[in-house]
């Protein structure tokens, strides 16, 4: 038995289904019932039921790429704020190898870095690393903070949404899994990108978002809206899954 439909909005404590379903993220089992633990939208896939949260804090996961800001320099590591309840550490050995150098010569407090989560231990000590393509320090640009669960929506299917913003504003944009977005381009274009990204965050749970983002971009950039395209795409409903 299932008591909700796909894409229903639920609150903590709502009973979603009984025993025959599996618990996904955002849900828990109590007795023979599956309940929601979050405010979010229900997602049913086969026999697995989960709740996609509308608001969340970033909980680090191994392998994620994140954007962090250096908050402290210690004897052999940097401390970073990664927009999470847990702060991250970047060991000096990861940057210098075996060499001994002064840490503040490489990165100083306030620097913004693009990093990978290398490891997390059981008390959620987050180890970060800089090994990988494109990882390192940002120069210039602005930071925008969004809810981490809305990152997939901002990127879009195969990067469609983010590439559209990149193309239209001619900005470099990098999205961290922790909900921090780095934007660099012309100052006016940075502001346009910021507006659009904030709009996506506000409306991430609604359908037909890509079209509205396109229209907003054209409006902000003073371009003509392509009439035919708007008409065709507006009518496309969210795919409904029959249960």
């Amino acid at each position: 038995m299932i008591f909700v439909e796909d894409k229903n909005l639920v609150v903590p404590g709502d009973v979603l289904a009984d025993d025959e379903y599996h618990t996904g993220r955002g849900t828990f089992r109590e007795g023979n019932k599956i309940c929601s633990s979050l405010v979010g939208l229900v997602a049913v896939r086969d026999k697995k039921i989960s709740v996609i949260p509308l608001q969340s804090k970033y909980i680090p996961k191994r392998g994620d790429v994140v954007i962090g800001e250096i908050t402290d320099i210690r004897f052999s590591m940097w401390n970073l704020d990664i927009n999470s309840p847990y702060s991250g550490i970047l060991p000096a050995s990861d940057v210098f190898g075996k060499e001994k150098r002064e840490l503040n010569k490489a990165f100083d407090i306030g620097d913004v870095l693009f990093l990978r989560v290398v490891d997390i231990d059981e008390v959620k000590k987050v180890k970060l690393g800089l090994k990988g393509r494109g990882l390192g320090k940002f120069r210039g640009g602005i930071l925008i903070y969004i809810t981490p669960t809305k990152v997939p929506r901002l990127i879009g299917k195969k990067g469609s949404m983010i590439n559209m913003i990149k193309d239209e504003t001619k900005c470099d944009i990098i999205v961290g899994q922790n909900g921090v977005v780095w934007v660099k381009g012309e100052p006016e274009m940075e502001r346009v990108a910021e507006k659009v990204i904030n709009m996506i965050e506000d409306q991430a749970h609604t359908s037909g978002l890509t079209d509205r983002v396109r229209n907003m971009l054209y409006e902000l950039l003073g371009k003509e809206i392509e009439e035919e395209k708007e008409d065709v795409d507006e009518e496309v409903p969210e795919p409904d899954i029959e249960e």
Partner: protein
Amino acid sequence: MAVIRCRYNMAPFSVGDRKRPGPDRRSVEISKITADALKPAVFLEKFPRSTIDVFIEILEAEGGTRCAGITAASVALADAGIPMRDLVVSCAAGKADGNVVLDLSEDEDKEGEADLPVAIMPRTGEITLLQMDGHLTSEEFDKALDLAVEGCKKINEIQKEAIKNRYGEENG
């Protein structure tokens, strides 16, 4: 395990006679019972080495502020995306003028015979807060508790509605 810290504070202008600002014996107690009432609902074990802070500022008091504080705090936790077993909802019952009544006002609380604040997790009916001030016979107590639980369930509907309204009608 995460820690829940709570601070309940009344503004000096929230009551008839100006209240001296800062914590007093009453607000320290309410801070503690609010944290205790919310604790069973939150998945604290999911967030080791972290703290959840709850701040309750009372701007206008007319009875029932501790219950309102707990009810609002649990909605705020849900809205912040903190995983919870259930919303916590609170409501007081009591006895005023010889009658068992629900949700006492300030005068009913002061002049009345008893005050019984209750907080529950509505799905399971688990009680997370139960206080009693004054005198009730055991029959009156049972009656008042049932009445308070019933009130809680009504308020729970309003809590859910408040959360859902925040995210527009299309998903309501």
